[in-house]
């Protein structure tokens, strides 16, 4: 895979610790990593190794203790300090989130779950619904566009959630165990979709996973152990 373009995600010596003194936990230690457009990468590691913490830092949900980070060319963290105050707006514009459990808003139907993030980004209702419908078709759940989340199967719900993550055309997509709740066939379908998105939208996809059956779907696997990145840029076997 050619690494064309500037990096979308760039972390330099990011550390993150919780608590102080005897209760101090070093969740991330001196993590540096770079992800380019069209790359689909995995974060791997035992429980407690810092995967979610890393995702939260990249997703601008958690402040780093030290280090620097740039997203899509914009410097966001410098020496452990935020350079932007409107982090929610930053997330809305640049980052799409996919969760282990779909986390769809239960009182909105599939279309409106997707349209919501478009409305939040300032699109008018008409445009938002049209784009939502288009996205649901793209993810092959167009036939379920009026269904409430409770009525969707696990795979359908996850695809609606992906549609929502893609709505504002973010170039960074973060996924925490996106396939853990799916069987291997549907997990494969979801991974294929993410790959398609990475190529179509020139996006970077970073997914935390334990799921061995999908390891072959990633371009790179970053392995974490005790908050340290073990295999920077290693390719899957």
């Amino acid at each position, binding site marked *: 895979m050619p690494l064309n373009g500037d990096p979308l995600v760039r972390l330099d010596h990011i550390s993150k610790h919780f608590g102080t003194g005897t209760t101090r936990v070093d969740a991330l230690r001196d993590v540096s990593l770079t992800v380019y457009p069209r790359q689909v990468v995995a974060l791997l590691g035992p429980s407690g190794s810092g995967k*979610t913490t890393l*995702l*939260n830092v990249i*997703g601008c*949900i*958690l402040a780093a203790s030290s280090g620097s980070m740039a997203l899509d060319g914009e410097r966001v963290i410098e020496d452990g300090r935020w350079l932007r105050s409107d982090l*929610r*707006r930053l*997330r*809305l*514009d640049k980052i799409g*989130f996919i*969760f*282990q*459990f779909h*986390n769809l*808003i*239960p*009182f*909105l139907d599939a279309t*409106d779950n997707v*349209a*919501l*993030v478009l*409305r*939040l*980004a300032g699109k008018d*209702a008409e445009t938002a619904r049209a784009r939502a419908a288009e996205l649901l078709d793209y993810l092959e759940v167009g036939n379920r566009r009026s269904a*409430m989340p409770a009525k969707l199967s696990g795979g359908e719900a996850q695809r609606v959630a992906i549609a*929502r993550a893609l709505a504002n055309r973010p170039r960074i997509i973060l996924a*925490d165990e996106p396939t853990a709740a799916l069987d291997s066939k549907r997990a494969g379908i979801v991974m294929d979709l993410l790959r398609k998105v990475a190529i179509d939208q020139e996006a970077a996809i970073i997914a935390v996973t334990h799921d061995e059956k999908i390891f072959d779907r990633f371009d790179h696997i970053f392995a974490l152990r005790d908050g340290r990145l073990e295999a920077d840029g290693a390719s899957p076997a």
Partner: protein
Amino acid sequence: MNLAYRDICHNLGRFLLTCLGLALLLGVVMAMIGIYRGIVVDALTISRAPAVDLWVVEANSRGPFAEASRIPGDVREAVARIAGVTAAGGITYQTVEADHQSRKLRLYVIGYEPTRPGGPPEIVEGRAVVRSHFEMVADQASGLVLGDRIELGRNTFAVVGLTRHQVNSGGDPAVYITLGDAQKLQFDLGPPAARVQIARGTAGAGRDTVNAVIARLQPNASVDAVAETVRRWKHFSAITQAEQEDILSRSLVDRARRQIGLFTTILLFVSAVIIALIIYTMTMEKLKQIATLKLIGAPDRTIVLMIVQQALALGLIGFVLGTAMILAIKDHFPRRVVLEADNVAGLGLIVLAVCIASSGLGVRAALRVDPATAIGG
């Protein structure tokens, strides 16, 4: 896309049930306020009915309602002659129990002179008492209807007219009869007692006795000056209408009023706590969704609006439903329930304030939610 509205629609049954529960609670609060107001209004009704300015009663008494008062009937002429008095009438009040259609009726009998102050303020059906003998105007609350005949003492009275809302402070419906009939009822003794009196040589004493003489003044006359004149006669007390109303609302119904007032306050407080709990719980149930909303980039404004709008919808629907309910049943209460617009509006404002205050609790919890909790472990 209104999130508050969409959430409500999604759980419509549950939301409406919650509204209904709140409506019942607010209905009870409103009923208590209505009963409270009703007691105060009822207490003043009888004293306001004759529309007079001055009450002349027995010396050192705060009669005729709060304390017993008996004065000679001929005081009326003396009062009527005071400068500034346009009309004066002797009046009696007494509570009697009568049998009617095999049930006991408690009646508040008012004896008055048909040509003088003291009669019913308005007659909603039938006519006023015209003959001095055994005609009666009764309040609708007694259940009596035109043409009914009812035995009081040793005489039978015919109901010729009906009034509305005329009850005494205990809730007993008023009936109006002529002063003469009333005096016979109140002061005539049964034959055995009368024989004892005759034997003592005191027969006939107190035949022309009234409980009070009421006086209406010229618009520009000074009520205090007239009262002062009466007081100089030594044997009588003079009470102005304002003082009379004060006596009635302070001493006569004071305990009942305070009792219900306190209970209403407690109910209001309980309602406030329950509203706060409902709204807080509604928000707590949505914390995960709120975390998700924050994570995908929703501003605080969107989240606060959702919580506040739901709280207001709950309060408003509960309040309107509760008001409608109490308006529908208020006339079926055994005693008067007075719902004044300003009381209802006041309660509405309190409910609104409680809703906003308690959504503050929910908002606080919602704003504290870490968006990271949406991602999960």
